[in-house]
């Protein structure tokens, strides 16, 4: 009887450890394969030039159009998300900080919003485009991606703000500050690292998302020139080039994927570092 319980424990300890390390292994496998495949055709030309004539048959050029387009779409969407998201998150934590129940209900709905898949946002963006008679353009892409990332941004900002002790709120209010001053001068300052993390997180989601820009931002070989022009995005560039039968074009898809992975890795690691570094200075 004694033996069985210890053998069982040893077995499951091994099994759980195996599961955990296999998750790490899968991530390493994914990243290493992307870089091994991508390094082959990675060159300065890839990053610095737009596609030239015959690019899709193995001609010269790079994916600068897609890199710039992705940065514009994600950057614009993050701007909108800041204007909409930051006040909303501050509102939950400054005006409503006495109403815990209401706060939790709002968080509950925001979390549910976070689960809506990006293709639905894409379809929604498309219906809006039809309604206003717009064509696929940078602007439509930005609006759609903004809808996608605003809930993410609010929730991750709010997550940090909610850890601020209520004593701080009460101290500020008792000194005669208005609720707005409480929100922007006290809570915002305390939650600044969380704000930066939320921006980075939202930016990462925006730059990597393909399904929502598929309908709305369109695709073009030109560098993005205006809000009403269509713009290429990096995930779509990878997607389209992967379906090509020509190995050189597929090779470029791999290296574009390596570029995208680098961007995502950098964003994720920077935001982690920021959290670790600045959370020490904050009131707990």
């Amino acid at each position, binding site marked *: 009887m004694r033996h069985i319980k210890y053998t*069982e424990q040893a077995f499951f*300890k091994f*099994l*759980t*450890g*195996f*599961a955990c390390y296999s*998750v*790490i292994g899968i*991530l390493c496998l*994914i*990243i290493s*394969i*992307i870089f091994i495949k991508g390094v082959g055709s990675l060159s300065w030309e890839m990053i610095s030039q737009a596609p030239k004539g015959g690019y899709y048959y193995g001609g010269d050029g790079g994916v600068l159009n897609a890199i710039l387009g992705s940065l514009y779409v994600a950057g614009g969407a993050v701007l909108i998300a800041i204007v*909409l*998201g930051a*006040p*909303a998150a501050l*509102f*939950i934590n400054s005006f409503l900080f006495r109403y815990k129940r209401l706060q939790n*209900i709002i*968080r*509950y*709905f*925001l979390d*549910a*919003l976070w*689960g*809506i*898949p990006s*293709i*639905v946002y894409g*379809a*929604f963006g498309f*219906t*809006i485009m039809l309604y206003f008679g717009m064509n696929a353009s940078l602007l439509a892409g930005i609006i759609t991606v903004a809808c996608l990332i*605003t*809930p993410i941004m609010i929730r991750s900002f709010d997550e940090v703000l909610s850890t601020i002790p209520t004593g701080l709120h009460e101290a500020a209010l008792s000194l005669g500050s*208005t609720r*707005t*001053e409480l*929100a*922007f001068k006290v809570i915002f300052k305390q939650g600044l690292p969380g704000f930066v993390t939320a921006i980075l997180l939202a930016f*990462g989601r925006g*730059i*990597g998302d*393909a*399904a929502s820009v598929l*309908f709305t931002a369109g695709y073009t070989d030109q560098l993005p020139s205006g809000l009403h022009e269509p713009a290429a995005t990096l*995930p779509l560039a*990878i*997607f389209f080039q992967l379906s090509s039968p020509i190995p050189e074009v597929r090779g470029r898809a791999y290296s574009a*994927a390596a570029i*995208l*992975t680098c961007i*995502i*890795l950098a964003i*994720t*690691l920077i935001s*982690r570092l920021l959290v670790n570094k600045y959370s020490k200075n904050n009131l707990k």
Partner: protein
Amino acid sequence: MGRFRYSYNFITGKWMLVTLAVILCLPVIIGISLGIRSADLLHDNGLIDLLFSSAWAPSKGEFGFLPFILSSLYVTIIAFVLAAPVCLLAAMYITQFSKPRMMKIMYPVADVMAGIPSVIYGMWGIIVIIPFVRDVLAPLFNVHTTGYSILSGGIVLAVMCIPYMLNMLIESFKTVPQGLRESALALGATHWQMVKHVVVRKSFPGILSAFGLGITKAFGETLAVMMVVGNVVQFSLNPFDPAYPLPALIANNFGEMMSIPMYDSALMFAALILLVVILIINLFFRYFIYRSKKIR
């Protein structure tokens, strides 16, 4: 000065309220606008017909979503069956058996995995999973396949929903009070018995909701699945056959949807199905988490 401060407070306060209201109304707005778009189709074909007919011929005006819905469900179930045990065991190891250092490693790992775009998972699926299914798994079962199959889609999806499930499982295991665990150990239970009888039971609602939310994540995933699942309108129980999940249907046909009458309406209806199903499942499982927060 004083008056300015209060009017400023009033205006910004109202602005903050408006932004929050807009965000909270977003799913309703999305639902209504998709609903208006798909009203034509609903009017012509009827809801029951659309959901339970398997005739798909847009040029003849036949829109049966059954094969797509079943494909979506099948891929999702395979992904869930593959991912759930791994996540559960890994979360147990991280929170119960390993040193605290492991947690510091796993958070960035889950972050990066969640951050990698779906198109890259799809590419990885094409490079790794498809040859694996075609050359290794298929011969084992004596089937012939191109590799673009339900099983490949399921495997890629499983990898994609690991970080979400893992994160939520770790969170719910961490909330088990230390005292409960210690009293189990003091009564002579081994570490594993403690995990099995105390930790799992105590965080059961958390586990359920983590699984539920993982499923919705898999159900709505588009690009990665579309790249490996083969996209053939059919449904068979053989996991080595290709299929055509709902999100892939929307993403694949956006180019030609304006050329065939009612086609755009049908695609928007597909998006509406996704939205409604996922919102309902999400609200249902989030409720467990919400409840556990209220008690605390």
